[in-house]
């Protein structure tokens, strides 16, 4: 399976996927740390996280996948939602909470 297929499978097999630098307990970048905090504040559970620092193919491939050059990247139900700035804006406007309402 090539990297693009691996990513497609990750974002479709899991309802919420965050590609980040580091892990939720030990984020390696301020933007990734902020993304984790925002998801927690929204009450998002079952968040699958992918540490791009542990896999260089994914780290490069995810940028191609979304035509988006930066990490973190949030996917909900297979759809690319945005990076750290967009997550923050959507959190502040209440839009992000709605994505996680059951």
């Amino acid at each position, binding site marked *: 399976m090539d990297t693009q297929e691996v990513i497609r499978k990750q974002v479709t097999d899991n309802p919420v996927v965050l590609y980040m630098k580091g892990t939720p307990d030990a984020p390696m970048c301020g933007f990734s740390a902020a993304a984790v905090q925002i998801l927690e504040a929204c009450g998002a559970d079952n968040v699958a996280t992918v540490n791009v620092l542990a896999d260089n193919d994914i780290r490069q491939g995810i940028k191609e996948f979304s*035509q988006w*050059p*930066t990490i973190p990247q949030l996917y909900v139900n297979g759809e690319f939602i*945005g990076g750290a700035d967009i997550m923050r804006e959507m959190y502040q406007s209440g839009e992000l909470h709605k994505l996680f309402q059951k």
Partner: protein
Amino acid sequence: MLTPETVKSYIKESLACDHVEVVGDGQHFEAVIVSPEFRDKNRVQQHQIVYRALGDRMREEIHALSMRTLTPEQWAEQ
């Protein structure tokens, strides 16, 4: 070291903007960008327009860029 002024000029030379503000410390930059190109685009598409305008510079020179993208109409309401 990359200055906010340089980042601002990169954005302005490749994207038709009504207004650009950039602040930063050489590593992390924050930009407010107002462009008519953002009309009828969602936020992801708006940021993609800026990333495309910056091209390779986004990969090679700019470590981190936070941005707020606004249409001229949204900017006028601020």
